[in-house]
């Protein structure tokens, strides 16, 4: 197949599926207890220089507690998949955790506006970027999950998004149509937040899947943060509900409200006041430093972060909001 055009962007991860197969050949298949603290999981599985992907969708079922822990541990020089990265990216930008970025959606927090901190970091010249789209990153993860070096698609062509990507175009050998070829993306480490998991990492989430099934399958290492543990028997009584099976998982960390201040489908809505505090604080360097000290660096863990931001009373308010209880009278 002859390449017609090639994007100028850098490809941060090698898409060779035999490298991935060699890795998975050696990955432990034993169903063992993987429960550990989030601190231990991040120490053990997230390394400086790794390529990182965060599950969920910006501030929806996103492992925010894990993002805090990564910043607290001062991880650096990471690659990052900006796959509708919103509040997660804001946190990782505050810690200057990554220096290369696959862009699909970055900097913004959707209807809430743009993050001054993420924007400043991206404009600082410290971050190398390659452009993609949300679908392109999903498809790239799917390619890695399938163990193929790329998948074809029909987006991106004719645009600067393609020009600054690391994609290629070629003619389809069946139809003669021009296609964009999206290279497989296998993150070194990914973190996904779920509703419930057993101690082995068999887990379930509710609501939209975003790209988390592709991500779980594509990742070399996977940390699960879960709202709660359930018994393995419960998983086995309803196997059609398993979202991610244990053999993809390296660590299971119990973090109630681990997606706070984001939304968790059916459990709690996003804390818009607190997200606004973030967006206000980050506009002023001194205030932001104090804000980060208070909310991340001087917090022992997520439990403390929640305690200083309204505690259980706030969590119950967010639960009522998520369940639209105000509409019931």
């Amino acid at each position, binding site marked *: 197949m002859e390449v017609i055009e090639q994007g100028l962007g850098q490809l941060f991860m090698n898409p060779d599926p035999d490298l991935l197969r060699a890795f998975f050949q050696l990955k432990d298949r034993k169903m063992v207890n993987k429960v550990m603290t989030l601190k231990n999981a991040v120490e053990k599985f997230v390394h400086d220089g790794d390529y990182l992907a965060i599950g969920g969708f910006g501030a*929806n079922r996103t492992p925010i507690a894990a993002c805090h822990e990564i910043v607290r541990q001062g991880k650096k020089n990471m690659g990052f998949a900006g796959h509708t990265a919103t509040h997660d990216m804001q946190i990782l930008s505050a810690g200057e955790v990554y220096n290369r970025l696959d862009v*699909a959606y970055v900097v913004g927090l959707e209807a809430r506006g743009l993050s001054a901190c993420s924007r400043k970091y991206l404009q600082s010249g410290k971050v190398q970027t390659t452009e993609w*789209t949300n679908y392109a990153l999903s498809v790239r993860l799917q390619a890695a999950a399938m163990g193929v070096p790329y998948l074809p698609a029909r987006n991106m062509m004719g645009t600067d998004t393609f020009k600054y990507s690391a994609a290629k175009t070629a003619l389809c050998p069946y139809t003669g149509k021009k296609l964009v070829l999206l290279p497989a993306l296998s993150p070194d480490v990914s973190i996904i937040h779920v509703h419930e998991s057993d101690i082995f990492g068999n887990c379930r989430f509710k609501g939209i899947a975003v790209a988390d099934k592709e991500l779980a399958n594509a990742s070399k290492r996977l940390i699960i943060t879960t709202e709660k543990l359930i018994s393995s028997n419960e998983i086995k009584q309803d196997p059609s509900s398993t979202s991610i099976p244990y053999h993809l998982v390296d660590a299971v960390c119990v973090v109630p409200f681990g997606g706070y201040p984001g939304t968790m489908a059916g459990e709690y809505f996003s804390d818009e006041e607190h997200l606004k505090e973030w967006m206000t604080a980050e506009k002023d360097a001194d205030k932001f430093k104090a804000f980060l000290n208070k909310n991340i660096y001087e917090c022992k863990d997520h439990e403390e972060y929640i305690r200083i931001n309204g505690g259980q009373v706030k969590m119950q308010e967010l639960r009522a909001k998520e369940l639209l209880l105000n509409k019931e009278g």
Partner: protein
Amino acid sequence: MADYNSMELMISVAARELENGATVGVGTGAPCAAAMLAQKISAPDLVIIFEAGGFGPELPEMPISVGDSRTTYRAIKAGSMGETMDYCSRGFVDYTFLGGAQIDMYGNLNSTVIGDYANPKVRFPGSGGANDFASFCWKMMVMTPQDSKRFVEKLDFLTTPGWLQGGNSREKSGLPLGAGPYKIITNMAVMDFEPNSKRMRIISINPGYSLKDVQDNCGFELLKAEKIADTLPPTEKELRILREEVDPYGYVIGRS
């Protein structure tokens, strides 16, 4: 005549474009409001689709994120981003609404950078799902305030495809055939695209504006349809539903 603001006008005009039974891919804000308004007035079976995986919800209120749980409230399916975009890619989605910091005469959009890519003056979010929706959905529409900083001769960055360089350039690019920009709805006018050149063309002018206003607030020369209509202002019914049911807190329409 009813008192209304330009956002209410744009949303009402956009809602009228969405016929019953169609599928529409939307984001938060004005596009979502237009789809909700259409459902409540003329298109009860309009299927609303969100890029993160929400399919066919009965939206109880405006979502804050295209992935929050409002997007799957009493929905047909809580799917995935891949699934949503696969629907679009195989021609199942009729409409989408997009926006950007800049738009050109072929309906191409920039939501990536202002300035040079390597040293941007301002870094914006990038494509997100916009390039995907615009590549795949049959008819792409834009709702935007109109001024010559936004309607530019040349984009700083072409994030999302319109008709690319016009003529048959989009066909040649490899993007799916037959899909592309359809209507541009601004505070001043409604534009479509002349079928051969694929250049933006004024088809109706909103109440209170002149042809000159529309051209003066555009950084490129607009074509003019043979007959230019007057845009119908929002009706009492549209305004009432928009204010009371769609956006009671005024998040998008700026009233409460």
